[in-house]
C-alpha cells in the first residue's frame, strides 16, 4: 500500500557481494528471516533490504501526515461537538502514527529532514488515496469505513514484519487504529438509519466516489508487481496485493448491506465456486495518473505540506536558537562556579 509505485519500479541494481565475510552475513540474515526471526537496527542487513525499508516506512509515514489534510478539511465543520472531538482525535492519531513511523525509519540511517525533503521534492510518494477531495461530511465517514478499513488490513500483517522497529511501530499503530474504522462506520450508520433523505443521498454519493480509489489502495495486480516477491521473501510484505484486495471486498460488501448503501459496481456479486465476491475491472489508468501526480488533489496536498514546512521554518529556527543560548548560559554558569 505504501509501496504502490515501488512494486513495479525497475529493480535496483544489486551490488555484487564483495567478500566471503559478507556472503556469510547474508546467509545468516536469510536464515534468520526464514526462521521468522526479527532484524534489529544494528544487525547486518543487505543494503537493498535497508533501502527498501527506508522507502516503505517513510512513505507510510508520509501517508499518515498527508492523510491529515483531507480530514482536517472538515475539522471546523463537524456537525456535532462529539463528532468534532472524535475527528480531531483521529487526525491527531494520524499525526502520531506518522511520527512513530518517522522514528522507525530513522533507525535505518535516514533523518526526518531528509525524508521530508524527499516528500516535498516529489521523490518520495504517499498513498494515492489521499489525493482525492473530501466534498461532504459523509466523505469523512466513508474514509473511516473504507480507507481506514483498507489500511488496517494492510497494517495487521505488518506487525509481523521482519524489521522489528517497524513491526513494533505497527503494533502501537494497530492498537490505536481500532476506533477509527468503527467511528467512521458509526457516523454513516446514524445518517443512513436515522437521517433525512438528503443525508442518505450524500452518503451514497460519497460511497460512489471513494469505492474504486479504495480498491486501488492495495496497489497494482500481483501479475504486474515484480518487486513484491523480494519484499515477501524478506518478510517485509506478508500478503499479496490481490489477496488483500479480495479480503477487503468480501468484508466490505457485508458491511455495505448493514448500512444500506450500494457499491458503484454492477459486476460485484458473490461467486459460490470461488467462495469470494467477483468485482469489476479497476481503471488502472486512473491509478497511474494519480500515482504520477495528476489526481484531483495531488498539487494541493503537496503544496499544503510544503507551505506548512516553509512557513514554519522561522519557528524551528527560533527554538533551535533559544536552546543554543540556554546551553551557552548554562555552560558559562558552570564555568563561573568552577
Amino acid at each position, binding site marked *: 500500500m505504501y509501496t504502490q509505485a515501488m512494486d513495479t519500479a525497475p529493480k535496483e541494481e544489486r551490488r555484487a557481494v564483495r567478500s566471503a565475510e559478507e556472503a556469510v552475513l547474508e546467509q545468516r540474515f536469510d536464515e534468520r528471516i526464514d526462521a521468522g526471526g526479527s532484524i534489529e537496527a544494528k544487525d547486518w542487513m543487505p543494503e537493498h533490504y535497508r533501502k527498501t525499508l527506508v522507502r516503505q516506512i517513510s512513505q507510510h509515514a508520509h501517508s499518515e501526515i498527508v492523510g491529515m489534510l483531507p480530514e482536517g478539511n472538515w475539522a471546523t465543520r463537524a456537525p456535532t461537538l462529539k463528532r468534532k472531538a472524535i475527528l480531531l482525535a483521529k487526525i491527531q492519531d494520524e499525526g502520531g502514527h506518522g511520527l512513530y513511523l518517522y522514528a522507525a525509519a530513522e533507525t535505518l540511517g535516514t*533523518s*526526518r529532514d531528509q525524508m521530508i525533503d524527499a516528500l516535498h521534492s516529489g521523490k518520495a510518494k504517499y498513498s494515492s488515496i489521499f489525493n482525492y477531495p473530501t466534498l461532504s461530511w459523509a466523505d469523512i465517514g466513508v474514509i473511516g469505513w473504507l480507507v481506514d478499513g483498507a489500511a488496517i488490513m494492510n497494517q495487521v500483517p505488518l506487525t509481523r514484519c521482519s524489521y522489528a522497529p517497524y513491526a513494533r511501530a505497527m503494533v502501537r499503530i494497530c492498537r490505536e487504529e481500532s476506533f477509527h474504522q468503527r467511528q467512521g462506520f458509526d457516523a454513516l450508520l446514524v445518517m443512513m438509519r436515522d437521517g433525512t433523505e438528503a443525508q442518505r443521498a450524500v452518503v451514497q454519493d460519497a460511497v460512489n466516489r471513494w469505492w474504486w480509489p479504495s480498491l486501488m489502495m492495495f496497489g497494482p495486480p500481483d501479475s504486474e508487481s515484480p518487486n513484491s516477491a523480494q519484499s515477501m521473501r524478506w518478510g517485509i510484505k506478508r500478503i499479496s496485493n490481490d489477496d488483500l484486495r479480495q479480503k477487503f471486498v468480501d468484508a466490505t460488501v457485508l458491511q455495505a448491506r448493514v448500512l444500506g448503501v450500494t457499491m458503484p459496481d454492477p459486476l460485484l456479486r458473490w461467486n459460490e465456486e470461488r467462495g469470494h465476491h467477483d468485482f469489476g475491472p479497476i481503471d488502472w489508468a486512473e491509478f497511474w495518473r494519480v500515482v504520477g501526480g495528476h489526481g484531483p488533489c495531488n498539487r494541493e496536498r503537496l503544496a499544503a505540506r510544503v507551505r506548512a514546512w516553509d512557513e514554519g521554518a522561522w519557528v524551528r529556527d527560533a527554538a533551535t536558537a533559544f536552546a543554543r543560548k540556554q546551553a551557552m*548560559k548554562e555552560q558559562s*554558569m558552570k564555568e563561573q562556579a568552577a
Partner: protein
Amino acid sequence: MNSSTISTELPKTETTAEWPKTETTAEWPKTETTAEWPLWEVFVRAKAGLDHKHCGSLHATDARMAVQLAREVYTRRQEGVSVWVVKSIDITASDPGDKDMYFDPMEDKVYRHPGFYELPDSVNHM
C-alpha cells in the same frame, strides 16, 4: 532563569545552527531547510510497578521540550505515567547478541543516523 551576566549578541538568522563547541555532535549536513532538531529516545512507564519501556523517538530542541512532547505524543498526557527522554546520541549501546550478525563491533550508537557521525573536515565548518 535569572538575568545572565554574559552578553550574548543575537545570532544572525543562518541556515545552519552551530552547536556549542563543548558538545560532540557533528554539524548537520546543509540542506535547503535549516538545522534539524536533535533526536531523543523516549521511555515510558505505564504505571507504578512496571519498568520504563522504550517506545520510540521524537525531535525536540531541549530536554524540557522533549519531555513535554513525549507526554503529548507517546502518552497522550495520561496521568500517572512516567516519561524519560534521552538524547539518542547520548545512549551508549552494545549488542553482543549474535556477533555474526553485528553491524560493526566498534559501533556504540543506538542505530545508524546521519546525525551521529562526524563529517569529514571538508564538510564540517565548525
